[in-house]
C-alpha cells in the first residue's frame, strides 16, 4: 500500500513536471526572437482559434442561454419570496461571471477542442507525421504546441465573455415571460453589481483554463508512442486531468480574490 502510494506520488510529480516543462517551452517559444516558421505557426493559430472559438459559438450560446434562463428563473422567483429580490443582479454576477461562465465554457472547450487536440496529435504520432516534422527540422513546440496554446487561450477567453453576455442578457429576455422586472432596471442592477474584479476574474480564469486545456491535451497527445489503441486511452486521461486541474485552479483563483 505504501509502495503503491509512493509510486503514484512520484508519477504524479513527474507528470506535473512534464506538463510544466512543456508550458515553459511553449511560452519561451512565444518570446523567442527567431523568425523561422512564424508564418506556418500563425496559420495553425488561426485554425485553432476558428475551430475552438468561432465553430463553438452555437453550442456555447445554447448552453449559456439555458444556464442563464435557469439561474434567472430560480433566483427571480425565489429571492422576492424571502425579501431578497434586490439581490438578483448580485446572484447572477456571482454565479455566471465569477464561476459558471469560465467553468462551463472550459468544460465545453475541453470536450470539444481538448479531445480534438489530443486525438489529432496522437494520430499524428501513429501516422509518423510527428516523426516527419522532426525529420524536417520543424520544431514541435513552435509548429504544434505554441499555436494550440495561443489559440486555446484566446478562444477560451472570448468564448467565456460571450457565454457571460448570452447567459445574462439572453437568459433574462427569455425569463421575462415570467418575471416582472423591467429590462432597463435589470441591466442597470447588473452594471452596478459588476466590479472590475469580476471581469478580471472571468478573464484570468478563462485564460488559465485555456492554457490548462492546451497543455494537458498536447502533452497526452504527444505521449502516444506508436499504437492507435493508445489514442483513446490518452484522450480519456487528458479529459479527466484537465477537468480536475481546471476545478483546482478555479478554487485557487476564487480563494485568492475573495478570501
Amino acid at each position, binding site marked *: 500500500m505504501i509502495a503503491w502510494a509512493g509510486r503514484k506520488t512520484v508519477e504524479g510529480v513527474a507528470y506535473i513536471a512534464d506538463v510544466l516543462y512543456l508550458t515553459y517551452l511553449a511560452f519561451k517559444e512565444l518570446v523567442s526572437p527567431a*523568425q*523561422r*516558421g512564424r*508564418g*506556418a505557426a500563425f496559420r495553425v493559430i488561426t485554425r485553432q482559434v476558428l475551430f475552438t472559438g468561432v465553430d463553438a459559438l452555437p453550442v456555447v450560446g445554447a448552453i449559456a442561454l439555458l444556464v442563464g434562463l435557469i439561474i434567472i428563473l430560480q433566483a427571480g422567483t425565489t429571492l422576492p419570496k424571502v425579501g431578497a429580490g434586490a439581490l438578483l443582479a448580485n446572484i447572477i454576477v456571482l454565479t455566471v461571471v465569477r464561476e459558471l461562465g469560465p467553468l462551463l465554457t472550459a468544460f465545453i472547450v475541453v470536450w470539444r477542442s481538448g479531445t480534438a487536440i489530443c486525438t*489529432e496529435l496522437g*494520430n*499524428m504520432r501513429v*501516422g*509518423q*507525421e510527428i*516523426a*516527419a*516534422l*522532426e*525529420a*524536417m*527540422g*520543424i520544431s514541435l513546440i513552435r*509548429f504544434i504546441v505554441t499555436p494550440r496554446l495561443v489559440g486555446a487561450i484566446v478562444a477560451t477567453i472570448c468564448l467565456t465573455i460571450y457565454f457571460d453576455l448570452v447567459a445574462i442578457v439572453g437568459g433574462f429576455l427569455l425569463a421575462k415571460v415570467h418575471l416582472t422586472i423591467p429590462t432597463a432596471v435589470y441591466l442597470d442592477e447588473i452594471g452596478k453589481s459588476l466590479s472590475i474584479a469580476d471581469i478580471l476574474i472571468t478573464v484570468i480564469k478563462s485564460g488559465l483554463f485555456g492554457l490548462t486545456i492546451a497543455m494537458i491535451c498536447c502533452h497526452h497527445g504527444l505521449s502516444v508512442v506508436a499504437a492507435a489503441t493508445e489514442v483513446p486511452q490518452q484522450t480519456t486521461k487528458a479529459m479527466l486531468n484537465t477537468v480536475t486541474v481546471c476545478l483546482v485552479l478555479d478554487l485557487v483563483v476564487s480563494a485568492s480574490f475573495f478570501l
Partner: protein
Amino acid sequence: MRPETVLELAHVSASKGDRVRVEDLSLTVQRGEAVALVGSNASGKSLALKLGAGLEIPALGTVRVLGVDPAQASADEVLRLRQRLGFVFDKHALISNMTVFNNVALPLRYHLTPPEEEVQDRVMARLAECGVEDFRDQFPVDLTLGDARLAAIARARVMDPDILFIDELLIGLDADDLGRVRGLVEGPWREQGLTVVITLNAPTTLFRFFDRLVLLRDGRLVAALPPAEAARVKDPMVPDFFAS
C-alpha cells in the same frame, strides 16, 4: 574527382524494442552514390537508415553525416543538418489536414519563407518530378498509398537535400509507381548527383539501378557490394532473399 564521404557509420550498435537491432555496423556512402540497404523484416535496415539520418542515436559507435555527428551536435547544428537531409518514412507521413501542395511547401515555408511565387515553382517542380502534380489540391486521405509516398518523396526533395533517405521504398507502389521511381533513380537523381540511401525488404528489378546493395541479417552487415555480385555472396540470407 576525389570521392567525398557524406555518410559514415563506424562500429555502430543500437536497438529498438526486443527484436530490432543493429550490431557493429560500419558503412560509408560517397556523394552521388545510390545505396540500398537490403534485408528481411526486422533485419535492422530501417534502424540503420534512421541512425544514418541522425533520427536515432547509437548506443555504441559513431555516425557522421555531412561531417556532423548528430549525437554530439548542438541543437542549431542538428537543425541545419535536417535541412540538408530528406527522409521518407515507411508510412507516407504527410500531414493529414494539409493538401499535397501545402505538405510539400511546408519545409520551404517554415525554413526559408521565400516569396509565394518561388514556393509555387519549387513545389510544382518537385510534384511534377514525382508525377503527382495532378493531386496538388487533394488531401493525403484521397490519395492511393503509392501516390502518397511519391508526394512524400517530393516533400523530402523540396529543400534540395544532399542526401535522400527512403525507408521501405517498395511499400504501396504498384507497377506504374515503380516505373516512376525507376525514372527518378535513373534520371534526375543520378543527373543531379543526389546521394540516395534506401531500404528494401524484397527483391526488385530496381536493384540494378543502385551502385551498391548493403545486405543485412539480424542487424549485422553481411556484405556491401554491386548488385551484380550480390547473388554470389555465401550467406544463409542470400538464397532466401534472391531466390526469385
